[in-house]
Structures are given as structure tokens and as C-alpha cells.
């Protein structure tokens, strides 16, 4: 069974819970309701043999409702097919953990919690993984400035604001050609 057939099988099995399916250059994506995301993922592991959870990540669409989105990348070593499952998450919602389905999700979900502030219900050990315990912000959220915010935890860690001399050196995504996307194009002409 290839990925396209598996998407059809999932659509039949979960019906309304599958909001949308996409296919782009051979990559298959399912957009599902958050409530049925976990049973669907469990079905993927148990029945469709997706035995490898490649990655768990999250997106922040600030200003849109619901604000966040979870992304699960699946792979099966038996059939060598990829599948991507996405589910929108509102700011006050908790995502059921999948660490009981794939143990590797434990640290992936800790990273999502650390960087984006999305909480996972049923997670065995939901602590920060990159920043230290007690760091007050979630740095990958869109409302967090690139240069950072000052914080102080004596004996543990501190952060300061980084100088943005000629920066920030980020491209303007989605606008026009490569010339206007360049960070330099936004500098006042010297």
C-alpha cells in the first residue's frame, strides 16, 4: 500500500475528523481535528505500520485562530512511505501526548513545549529541554523578538538583548523576487 492509498484508508476510517488532504510532489499531508489526532496516529502506527516518528514540530500563525499547529512526520521502514499529519491547536488547548505511541516523541514534545509553549497532556516529564527551567519566555513564538528579552535567574542563567546593528538579517518571506527578499533591500540606501 503506498501513501496515497493509506490516505484514502485513513479518510474512510476517520471520516469527518480528516479535514483536508494534500499532495505536493509526492508528499502526502493530512489535516485532522486535534481531538482525533491521537487515535489517528495510533492507527497509523498499529495498522499502517508507520513505525518511525521522524519529527514532531509546531507552527505559530500569530493573529489567526486557532493560533498554533502541530505537525507529525511519519515514516515506515516496512513500506518506505512518508506521511505528514497536521492538527490546529488553540492557545488554551492541550495536545494529547504521543510519547506512549512512539517513545521518541518524549523529547520532541519537550522541545515543542520549550520553544512554543504548547502543553502536552499525559506527557511523562514535561520540562524545558533547551532553555533552563524557569526561563520565562517561549522563544520561537512570533511575538518574541529575534534579539531576545532580558531575563535573570541567579546561579542558573541569564539572557540579554542582542544588538541588531545592521539587522535583523532575515529575509522577507513571500514577497516578490530574490532581490526584494534580501535583507539588504530593506536598509536605507547609503
Amino acid at each position, binding site marked *: 500500500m503506498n501513501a496515497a492509498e493509506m490516505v484514502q484508508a485513513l479518510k474512510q476510517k476517520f471520516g469527518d475528523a480528516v479535514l483536508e488532504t494534500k499532495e505536493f510532489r509526492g508528499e502526502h499531508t493530512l489535516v485532522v481535528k486535534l481531538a482525533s489526532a491521537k487515535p489517528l496516529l495510533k492507527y497509523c502506527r498499529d495498522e499502517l505500520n508507520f513505525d518511525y516518528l521522524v519529527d514532531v514540530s509546531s507552527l505559530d500563525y500569530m493573529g489567526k485562530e486557532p493560533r498554533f499547529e502541530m505537525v507529525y512526520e511519519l515514516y515506515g521502514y516496512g513500506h518506505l512511505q512518508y506521511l505528514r499529519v497536521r492538527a490546529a491547536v488553540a492557545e488554551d488547548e492541550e495536545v494529547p501526548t504521543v510519547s506512549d505511541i512512539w517513545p521518541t516523541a518524549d523529547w520532541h514534545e519537550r522541545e515543542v513545549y520549550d520553544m512554543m509553549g504548547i502543553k502536552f497532556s499525559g506527557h511523562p516529564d514535561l520540562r524545558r529541554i533547551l532553555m533552563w527551567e524557569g526561563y520565562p*519566555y517561549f522563544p520561537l513564538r512570533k511575538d518574541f523578538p529575534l*534579539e531576545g528579552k532580558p531575563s535573570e535567574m541567579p546561579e542558573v542563567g541569564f539572557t540579554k538583548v*542582542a*544588538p541588531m546593528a545592521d539587522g535583523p538579517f532575515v529575509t522577507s518571506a513571500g514577497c516578490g523576487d530574490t532581490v526584494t527578499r534580501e535583507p539588504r533591500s530593506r536598509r536605507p540606501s547609503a
Partner: protein
Amino acid sequence: MVAPADQTLAAYDSKVEGNVIFTKLDAAINWMRKNSMWPMPMGLACCAIEMMAAACSRYDLSRFGAEVMRFSPRQADVMIVAGTVTYKMALAVKRVWDQMPAPKWCIAMGACASSGGMYRSYAVLQGIDQLIPVDVYISGCPPRPEALLEGLMRLQHKIETEHSFVEQKKELIDELTA
């Protein structure tokens, strides 16, 4: 070898003449210090790979007396901060620095250790000199091993000019009178 008593003049022994040198104590101490610097390799990113290359056979850091990389700060003289110092690592670097016995020196190797480099970000300390005093900054991203050797030689020149004995004595006096 001591000459027989009847052949020796009162305050002068021609036999040891060639083995005596006159110099300032400072100069002697500095000479010993600068030719046997034991680095504490604080390898945090890609600069550490260049530091390892500098210590290996092709570039051979031991020509300058700095080949004894000590992974214990208590046995080291010079800390080579090689790489990106994240805020999470910053206080650990400071703690290792505090454990090194004086006299001690610090080399900030590469753009990241000197100024944060290309990481203008919430996660990266913008230069290790915000936490510990730096003697030599080495530019480059990462610097070539030759640049590290040059930095080390600059540090040797710096050590030559120090008033090590006077400063040490002053510290001792301050300590005793405090």
C-alpha cells in the same frame, strides 16, 4: 664540581661563571610562564575543530610550549574559548574560569566568542568578555590554526610585558593587610 679550597678566591668561582646570568626576576618569571602555557580547551563549536588541528602534527602547538591541553581547569594557565557561548553554557564557562589558578589568561577564539558573531539571537552571549576578562581576541569564522598560533604568540608578547613579581607581591601584601 667544586674547586679545592686553596685554588678558590673568596667571592668568585671561575668554574660557575658560564652558568650565571643576571636578569630581572620579572623577566625570568615571564620567560618561564610564556613558554609553558597549559591551555584549558573550552571547545564549544566549530572553532574547537581548528583548535584541535592547531594542536596536531601539521601545525604543532607544542613549538610554542602550549601543547599540554588540560581538561582540568586547576592545571591550566590559559583558557581558549573556542566557539559559540550560549547563555545556557555561559555560567558554566565562568565557573571553569573561576576554578583556574592565577596567573591565568583568556583567548577569545573566533567571531562568536569575541562578539556573538553571526548569532544575534536570544540564545547566544554577545562575547565572552561580558563574563571574563579576555587578553587576546582572534578574528575569523573559524580562524585558521595559524591565526590561533598568532594569537598565542601575541599572548606570549603580552606576558613578557607583565610586572608579574610586583603584582604578585602587591596581592600578597593586600591579602596580609586585609
